């Protein structure tokens, strides 16, 4: 009966965890009974190993026979999947081909300047420029609208003035005509009166 903390046979066949092995080793150093047990195990193994290996009487070997050979497809398939390097190379080649096909078939995008690196200062300048542009646009639009309104109003005023002037001219022409008519009538009256007077003086003589 062994007094070892762990099975001495597990210790002998190196089937103990490192810590357990160390504990058993310490125990064996101080326990003559367990040392003796280990010696018996060792002696048994040594005796067993007295039975030597034999040489094989006839070497085993195979000749290449198509019956036992895999098909060409199978060999190719195994060759592809059997080598990580080859598989990697094929994958890389397929990826390259896909990239080439994609680059040849896709539409050419409009050239654009490479996007500048965005920094705080650049961002601020961009915002200011954007704001300034928008402000300028708004002012320009307001001025244009105001000028348009002003021009329209001027046109209206001019038209009104023209109409007023025409009416006044027409009224003045009417008054002048009336005045001329009156004067004409007055003149006629005078002529008639003169004629009457002249004829009366003739009769007197």
């Amino acid at each position, binding site marked *: 009966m062994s007094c070892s903390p762990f099975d001495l046979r597990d210790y002998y066949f190196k*089937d103990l965890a490192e810590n357990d092995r160390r504990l058993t080793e310490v125990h064996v150093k101080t326990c003559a009974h367990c040392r003796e047990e280990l010696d018996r195990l060792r002696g048994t*193994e040594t*005796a067993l190993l*007295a039975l030597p290996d034999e040489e*094989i009487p006839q070497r*085993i070997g195979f000749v290449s026979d198509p019956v*036992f050979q895999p098909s060409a497809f199978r060999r190719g398939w*195994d060759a592809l999947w059997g080598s990580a390097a080859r598989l990697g190379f094929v994958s890389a080649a397929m990826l390259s081909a896909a990239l080439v096909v994609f680059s040849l078939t896709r539409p050419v995008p409009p050239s654009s300047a490479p996007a500048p690196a965005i920094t705080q200062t650049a961002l601020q300048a961009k915002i200011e420029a954007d704001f300034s542009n928008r402000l300028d646009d708004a002012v320009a639009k307001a001025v244009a609208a105001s000028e348009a309104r002003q021009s329209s109003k001027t046109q209206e005023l001019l038209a009104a003035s023209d109409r007023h002037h025409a009416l006044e001219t027409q009224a003045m022409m009417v008054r002048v005509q009336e005045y001329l008519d009156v004067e004409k009538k007055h003149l006629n009256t005078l002529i008639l009166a003169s004629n009457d007077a002249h004829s009366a003086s003739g009769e007197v003589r």
Partner: protein
Amino acid sequence: MIFRAVEDADLIRKACRGDVEAYNLLISRWERRVYNYLLRIVANREDALDLSQDVFLKAYQNLRKLDDPARFAPWLYRIAHNEAYSLFRKRRPEGETEELQPETLEGAATLGGNAVFPVELTLAVSSALRKLTADQRETVILKIYQGFKFEEIAEIVAAPVSTVKSRLYTALDLLKTELAPVKTPTKARGVS
């Protein structure tokens, strides 16, 4: 060890692609170990050789089913285990329910003959191994002679690790008793 494992993995990959020469090289690395494993189980050289050839043929035919080349050794021994037990089943007489035993004992008397180890010790070990059950003997072979880890042995014999340990420790207790009177050489191979 790691370098060797990488080399085996390369050979397995090549063999999967139909490279027979790569598979023959892989066989040359493992045939002796597999043959001795089977020889100690079936105790017959001819059967062990036939089984070894069957094992490597089946391994080649199913090599693509091996997900992790690093697990080649336990996978190969699993095939060898199945082949050996198929042979036992085929040769077991009808109605026999006893535990499987090696068919012949002739191997025991002729194994060894090595100058380093006395013949008496070799015979004693062979005799002691025969007294174990088939499961215990196989566990001892896989652990002591083949140097597998407990988890790998569990995978090969399709049993839990606790069962494997139980079989091994029981077998070692029996062997310890059987081999105690035999004087062993002081210098031998190390622990696997």
